[in-house]
């Protein structure tokens, strides 16, 4: 006599053992949830200590569709001093082109006038290596400053340009 089972029937005996397994699963879920919460708390603490709101500056990067400019790298200077640089993998570029925003730099500045320079390197539609840049003058006041560097497509000129947006918090 041969046995042959193709269907997945759940009987009462299995239900009992499943329940105790699900208790373990719930405990594991609780552990994951608590870890996530603690991660969040420590992140806030770390930011408060290292980058207090009064001196904090953050620089973000976003990309439009990437049709006219395939991003390869970016450099950012503040008052001619290098503060950030990044080389993009294909995956990271895709993530930006699908709508993601990257936090490129987080630092501290005291109050006053500054000039930000951003240089983007990439490849245009014809496969040529090109650079796009932006300069932006800003005043650092006594609260957080967030600046977004957007690589935007210009369909009229068939080129990309860099637009700087300062977030209003």
């Amino acid at each position, binding site marked *: 006599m041969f*046995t*042959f089972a193709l*269907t997945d*029937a*759940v009987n009462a005996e299995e*239900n009992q053992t*499943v329940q*105790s*397994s699900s208790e*373990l*699963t719930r405990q*594991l*879920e609780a*552990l*994951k*949830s*608590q870890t*996530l*919460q*603690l*991660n*969040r*708390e*420590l*992140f*806030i*603490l770390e930011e408060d*200590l290292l980058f207090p709101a009064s001196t904090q500056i953050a620089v973000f990067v976003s990309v439009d569709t990437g049709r006219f400019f395939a991003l390869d790298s970016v450099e950012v200077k503040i*008052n001619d*001093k290098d503060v950030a640089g990044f080389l993009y993998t294909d*995956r*990271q570029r*895709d*993530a930006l082109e*699908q*709508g*993601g*925003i*990257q*936090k490129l730099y987080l630092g*501290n500045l*005291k*109050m006053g006038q*500054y000039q930000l320079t951003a240089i983007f390197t990439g490849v245009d539609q014809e496969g040529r*290596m*090109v*650079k796009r*840049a*932006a*300069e*932006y003058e800003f005043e650092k006041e006594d609260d957080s400053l*967030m600046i977004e560097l957007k690589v935007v497509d210009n369909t009229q000129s068939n*080129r990309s340009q*860099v*637009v*700087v*947006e*300062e*977030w209003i*918090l």
Partner: protein
Amino acid sequence: MCFKGSLSKRLKCLLLILSCHGMCSYAQGNSNEDLIESGENTEINDSKAVNKTDLQDKYYRQALYYYFQDNHDQALSQVEQSKAKLQHLDSRASLFEAGLQLSEGLLQQAKKTLVNFDDLIIAEQNNQISNRKSARANELLLISLLSLTDQYLAQGDITQAKESLAKIKSISSTYYPQYHVLSQLAYWPDDVTLLPTEPGKSVDNGSPYILLNDALRLIEQSREEQSSTEQSMNSHGKYQQAISLLTTIKSTSWQEKPADFWKTLFLNEVSFASQSDEQKMQISQGQAIQDYAQLLLAQIYISQQRYKLAFNELESFPQQSPYTESALFLFAFASQEVGQYDIAFSLLTLLYQDYPYSSLGWQSAELMAEQVSQQRSLGQGISAFQNVENFFLLRQQDLRNFAKAFADQEDLLEFLPVTVMPVQGAVAMKGFQTESVWLQQALYDAELTSLYQGLTSIDEQTKKIQLLLNKTTWLAEIIALNKRRKALIVATNEARDFPMIYKKLSAERDRLALILTQQVKSNDHTVFANDEERLWLARIKDSDTIIKTIEGQKNTEEYQQRLSRVQGVLSWQLAQKNPQRMWSHKKQLQYIDNAIAGVTYQQQKISELSAKDDSLSIHVAKLQHSTFELKQQLNQAGKLRESFTVKIRAKVSEYIDEQNILLAEHLLSTRQGMANVLERMAKTEKSLSRQSIAEPDLVGSY
């Protein structure tokens, strides 16, 4: 008193002292970089756009950056951080959070998020927040509930799965097939009452999974009815219905519709490196469905003893299929029943050689030996049974070795893990994988697989907790550094006697302001004269003195006139330049006022911070609390790992016992088979020897 053309040096010095402490500073440079480099195409854009910022959108997109790199863990962390900063998330971000929670196995959290989702949508609509984002809210809620149901079913938690399904109040035609399948699974094997479809919309009830589940249900019901003789007629009807469904599945090409972002987030477990990989997987899935339908069809035919039909069905079964083993076994059985003994023999031999650890392989070995003893000589039959007996003895030894090795293994995740790198382009397999065939077989049990996944998760969580603990050590050092720095600043501040400096600074500023005011009132243009002009004024004055001295002795009228002309020109020049110079000095005074205000403000802040003891204390308290919680969690993780390990060992032990029983049964029946053959051999020899004794007597009589 004169007002110098530039800031007083004393004032500059005072401002420098006051501003140079405390905060970090960046070197100021005014050089403009030339960004046009030879041989490269470069553009400079000074455009700046300052728009009102939708922070919910910005933070959501920061999480998307990680999500699109398949880093769900980091994406979820980002969402949590956004929640902490923004205090709440909008409906889109909430749903995204729920999807990420589901993918990370946080079902309870996801359920909580989804339960509150309706209220969130209503609140947004009441506040007239952009409906563009919440326009698809009901659809997204539906997708998330379907996903939640799917997850609960995968965990075997049928009650929760039914609860999630019950929350669905209406269903669109697009998601009806998924809803139908999940309902079938949640209420299996009973019939399920489905929600009505949208009026005017047709529903695709022809999804292969729906048809397959219907067919399986009919087969199960038929089997139950077949065992009860009263309902055996009904079972035939149900078998026919199942045959019709399976024939439809077998002869149709199935293709999944492309999924949008939300469907991919909630309902797709596997990620693909490229579209072609995804297409290949879809083709494989479609083929697998057809294979399974073909297999079920063959099983029905065998149940109905229509062996020829089963044989014909399985003759065309593909060689490469997830169901090859089962199909081979059925084919071998059908071949025996239709008298195709050579085919049956080849298949049975192939099965027990290629699948030496599976129960189908073991059955095949016995059947093969039995067939040999029936179809060929008894001697060959004995030999076949002896081979099969050795085969089972080897399997038993194998199983004992596995049991010992498994019991001796401390860390279950280190038990013969897979060391071969995955093939490029292949879909990345999640979960624990092993090279031990026995354990691979045991892992066919969903509960055991889930336990192993839990164990892997615990190790991942333990690593994360350890990283966080390391971070707390580092943060404690930062706090200690900040405390020392603060103490140093306070000490420096106290040593400098800033009130005295301020007093002097203010006095100096007031003095200069007074001079300016007086000069403005007196309208004396010579006040703002530069050095060269002062020299000229001095020379004019000297000349005037000399002229007055020699007035009595000589005719000085001409000299007087010439001096007056020079003085007039100089006065006119000074008068021309006076407004601009006055404005310039006023601006400089304003600058000084601003600088003093700035420095005063800084000093105030420093005094406040110096006086405030509790700013760092709050951080210290938070850090201590976090450290304590993390240590507790590490402890809990250790205990949980132990519980999982105990549970896994129990499950594997159960499996080993089952296999031992099976092997013992097979060994016993093999030996019984061998005994039967030996008995037949003995009978045959006995009858032959009787015949040979009877024949000489007959010869003798003639």
